[in-house]
């Protein structure tokens, strides 16, 4: 176009100067040369900006190959939830708590972290199960792992969860409801998401067990006092009355070959088969790396729960 011909007349030093490869002495020399060489001046004037950009290119990063698919899934799940179901509360744990502790506003007084160490031992809210024969990399036994009823045990967890959840922000999930004016927002006046501190975000892509077509993902944010988990699922079957879905973290625990399961919460889906829920748990997904979604029947210890979805945290 305009300057092709002129640019071809520039000296090699012009390209070196633009790309930052001249030694300081040579660069000074080129400065002198520039005063008397119109062709080089043209090249520098035309390409100076792109040259600076090139010299300061940040390292290349690639999004994970399945990110787009997960984004579309999560938007569709959220949309299905909006359209066809009563939207689940963002903080189900808080609403279910029998005795919420009074709390100061979150930013001023975050809760001390819970005793994480206790999670590594069998205790209320955690349990052991026998390691399935194949535990290497295939976290989801399709069926058959006995999961005893545990409804009562969870009440204690909800009390903790509620207090912590009240204290901590719900993470980005809450921010969705809040729309800053796009045009006028600058970083200085940007809203804060809740009062919490996002220390780390962990993603868990959930894959269907054999024979199911469900999909989903979970994102966990580390906040003061524990982890806020946002779970988005699609394609789950509507369960019989009284049954529900449960979300578990599985870790290797401190007794060999006995994985520990920790509940991150329970939920149900409507006819759409989709849900977008936020849950709270103290379990660190970097420690308890496997997440499992199971279908549960409360109060029936003989009932075998099925693993519907499972995935491993990326860290």
């Amino acid at each position, binding site marked *: 176009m305009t*300057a092709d011909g002129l*640019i071809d007349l*520039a000296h*090699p*030093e*012009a*390209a*070196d100067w*633009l*790309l930052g*490869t*001249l030694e300081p002495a040579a660069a000074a020399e080129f400065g002198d040369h520039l005063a008397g060489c119109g062709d080089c001046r043209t*090249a520098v004037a*035309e*390409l100076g*900006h*792109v040259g600076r*950009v*090139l*010299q*300061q*290119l*940040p390292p*290349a*990063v*690639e*999004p994970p190959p399945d*990110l787009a698919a997960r*984004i579309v899934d*999560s*938007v569709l799940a*959220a*949309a299905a939830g909006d359209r066809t179901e009563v939207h689940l509360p963002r903080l189900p744990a808080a609403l279910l708590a029998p005795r919420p502790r009074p709390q100061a506003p979150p*930013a001023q007084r*975050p809760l001390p972290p819970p005793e994480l160490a206790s999670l590594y031992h069998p205790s209320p809210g955690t349990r052991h199960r026998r390691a399935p024969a194949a535990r290497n990399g295939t976290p989801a036994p399709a069926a058959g792992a006995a999961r005893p009823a545990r409804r009562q045990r969870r009440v204690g967890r909800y009390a903790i969860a509620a207090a912590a959840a009240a204290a901590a*922000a719900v993470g*980005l999930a809450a*921010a*969705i409801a809040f*729309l800053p004016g*796009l*045009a006028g*927002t600058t*970083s200085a006046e*940007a*809203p*804060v*998401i*809740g*009062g*919490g*501190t*996002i*220390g*780390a*975000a962990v*993603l868990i892509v959930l894959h269907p067990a054999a024979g199911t077509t469900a999909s989903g993902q979970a*994102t966990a*944010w580390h906040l003061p006092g524990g982890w806020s988990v946002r779970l988005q699922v699609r394609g789950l079957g509507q369960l019989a009355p009284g049954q529900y879905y449960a979300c578990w973290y599985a870790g290797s625990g401190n007794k060999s070959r006995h994985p520990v399961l920790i509940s991150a919460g329970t939920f149900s889906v409507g006819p759409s088969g989709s849900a977008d829920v936020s849950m709270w748990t103290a379990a660190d997904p970097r420690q308890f790396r496997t997440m499992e979604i199971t279908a549960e029947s409360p109060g029936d210890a003989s009932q075998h729960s099925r693993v519907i979805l499972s995935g491993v945290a*990326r860290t």
Partner: protein
Amino acid sequence: MSLSDAGARIAAQEARLITQIADGNLEEPMQELCHRYEKSLYGFGAHILGDEALAEVMVQEIFQRLWRTAGRFDLASDSPRAFLFGIARSVGAEIRESRLAGAGRAARESSLPPLPDSVDPILDALAVREAFGTLSAPRAEVLRLALEDGLTQPEIAQRLEVPLDTVTARALHGMQALRAALGERVPGERGTGDG
């Protein structure tokens, strides 16, 4: 067809996709916009957050918010790209603030890259990086040897056993092609008549 015509056509296409999303037709328009923008939004996030996991969270949040705010998109005056990066800027700033909130702010501040006064340099860098992939192999090779290995034009000529003038022509024409990508990035700013 000039570059700015192509830019205007792409913008019109993407504007239609956003309108479809506003109308509740989600899946295909979302897929298409994800396909077109996830890479640059991810790069943008990684740059301003200094963390790829957070960048991933950010990109997901951007598209959630795109879905919820598509109705605000003004066909007449908004550019789809500017609309998306406007959302990206807000989400990125919120994630940064959340990371900084609470105790130990000063300590954490040092762990985040400084937020530039303007995101234009980042967008320029993303546009140039993207355009780099479209350069012919000989031009890309010359630029890479200079930028990554710090070789001068004569050194590159020697390395490739190509005449010096040829090397310089490749470097300058390559940069010219990249500059065109910068013109595309901001319709009307450097190009002409594509507002």
